[in-house]
């Protein structure tokens, strides 16, 4: 298929349709509303399920219900709405259900604003709800990746019976780029064995996140942890460029990652030995590769649109081998390439001075 100019939000919506999305439940919130608007037309035309819920709380619980019924289902929202969905996310984690959630992140905390941000990193990777679990988190940095990762999100959700969060920011939701959509996939043909379809002749299926006996709850937790271990081993994804023979490694994801690319290229034109690693999965974090690179770079610079959240993951991966510095803008401010360039230059100068000494 040929490339089209696509807006991020619309592209995610259409990609979900083509991934075989059967049902969507959501609530309007800027800057993701186009996604909901697009599906309100498209899904109804296709005779699939679209419902605008009374709140994000209701939306995620409708998603929970539809997932129990065995449907390929998703919702989308933006930061404050994801906060409201946390209850449902925890129950979904406690019931091992495959769902896809899109978070088009905006500036916070509080009502904040509607501008692009990466302030939900901790929320989506660490604290998506009470209890011990992590969603799989995919972080696209272009409209094409937003499409590809939407498809991947459904694949991973079903492969692992696990929730997958697509964490983009308002810039990716709002921008247009040429991108290619995949062909339409068929809807799921058969409901999974565990789905609630009415018991018929079989013993009843029960989906519940309640385990009153501590050991049973622990066993469930162990199962989730074992699954996460497999996910960590198999699903780390990243993109890297100019990472051979460098002194400074820049790490950034999503919008911050692509802006960092422009800054890295400028720095390289000036002769600085700098490269970029762009995590595509925030959970599992690509710490194996970062750890490898930390063996031979002299320092690492983390760039984010927050106060330094992925920074913790990078530090864990680097494990104190080399210094890790940080540049971030907050509250919906998108850094310009020159700001990141300056941060690169500063980190690079320090590194080379240290080396010379």
């Amino acid at each position, binding site marked *: 298929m040929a*490339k089209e*100019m696509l807006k991020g939000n619309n592209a995610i919506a259409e990609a979900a349709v083509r991934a075989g999305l059967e049902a969507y439940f959501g609530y309007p919130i*800027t*800057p993701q509303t186009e996604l909901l608007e697009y599906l309100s037309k498209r899904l109804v035309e296709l005779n699939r399920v679209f419902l605008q819920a009374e709140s994000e709380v209701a939306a995620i619980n409708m998603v929970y219900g539809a997932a129990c019924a065995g449907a390929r289902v998703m919702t989308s929202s933006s930061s404050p709405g994801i906060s409201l969905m946390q209850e449902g996310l925890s129950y979904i984690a406690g019931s091992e259900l495959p769902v896809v959630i899109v978070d088009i992140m905006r500036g916070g905390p509080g009502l904040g604003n*509607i501008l692009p941000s990466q302030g939900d990193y901790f929320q989506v990777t660490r604290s998506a709800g009470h209890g011990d679990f992590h969603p799989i988190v995919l972080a696209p940095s272009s409209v094409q990746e937003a499409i590809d990762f939407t498809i991947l999100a459904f694949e991973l959700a079903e492969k692992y019976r696990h929730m997958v969060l697509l964490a983009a920011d*308002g*810039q990716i939701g*709002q*921008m*247009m*780029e*040429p991108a290619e959509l995949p062909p339409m996939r068929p809807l799921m043909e058969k409901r999974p064995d565990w789905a609630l379809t009415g018991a018929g002749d079989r013993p009843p299926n029960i989906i519940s996140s309640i385990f009153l006996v501590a050991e049973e709850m622990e066993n469930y937790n162990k199962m989730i942890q074992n699954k996460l271990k497999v996910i960590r081993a198999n699903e780390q994804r990243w993109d890297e460029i100019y990472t051979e023979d460098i002194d400074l490694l820049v790490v950034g994801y999503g919008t911050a990652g*692509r*802006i*960092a*690319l*422009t*800054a890295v*290229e400028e720095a390289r034109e000036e002769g600085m030995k700098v490269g970029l690693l762009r995590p595509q999965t925030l959970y599992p974090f690509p710490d194996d590769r970062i750890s490898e690179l930390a063996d031979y770079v002299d320092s690492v610079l983390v760039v984010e649109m927050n106060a330094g959240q992925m920074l913790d993951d990078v530090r864990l991966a680097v494990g104190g081998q080399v210094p890790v510095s940080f540049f971030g803008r907050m509250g919906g401010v*998108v850094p*310009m*390439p*020159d700001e990141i360039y300056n941060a690169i230059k500063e980190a690079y100068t320090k590194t080379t001075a240290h080396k010379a000494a």
Partner: protein
Amino acid sequence: MIESFLFSGFGGQGVMFAGQLLAYAGMDTGLETTWIPSYGPEMRGGTAHCFVVLSDKPIGSPLVRNPKTALVFNNPSFEKYDPLIKTGGLLIVNSSMIVQSSNRTDITTLNIPATSLADELGSLRVANLIMLGAMLAANHIIRPEDLKQALADHIPAHHTDMLGMNYAAVDLGMEHAVQVLAR
């Protein structure tokens, strides 16, 4: 090669569509392209701007602090972006709406009375295309025929009857800019 463009004006002046049109034409001619809007709570009448980047290699940042080319449609946009244009760059001013003119000597400025010309042509709504046409006279990255093709391909269905006038607006903008440049 990397070219950056800013379109800025009041909501309703068609700045977003003009930017998209350039992006479409860029994509259709095989360039890497990004289009990114400002977005805010105002639906109508607020200031709106968008950035377009065209390049022959993958584009990192879609945002640009110092655009090479700026098309400004109202006073606040002029005041904000006139100082920011890259040295050697191009500024297209809708002089029907903007009373000031640029004092910069390190950029090319084209004052185009786009709104008045659009009025003469028969619709105030094509001022955005007159501005875009004027830009094509000074920046040759996109050929006029490619822009017109993009117009034909992407004009909203309920405006297809306006296509002829849209073409005329692009031509008029170009012609006017050629005259201004010749002076």
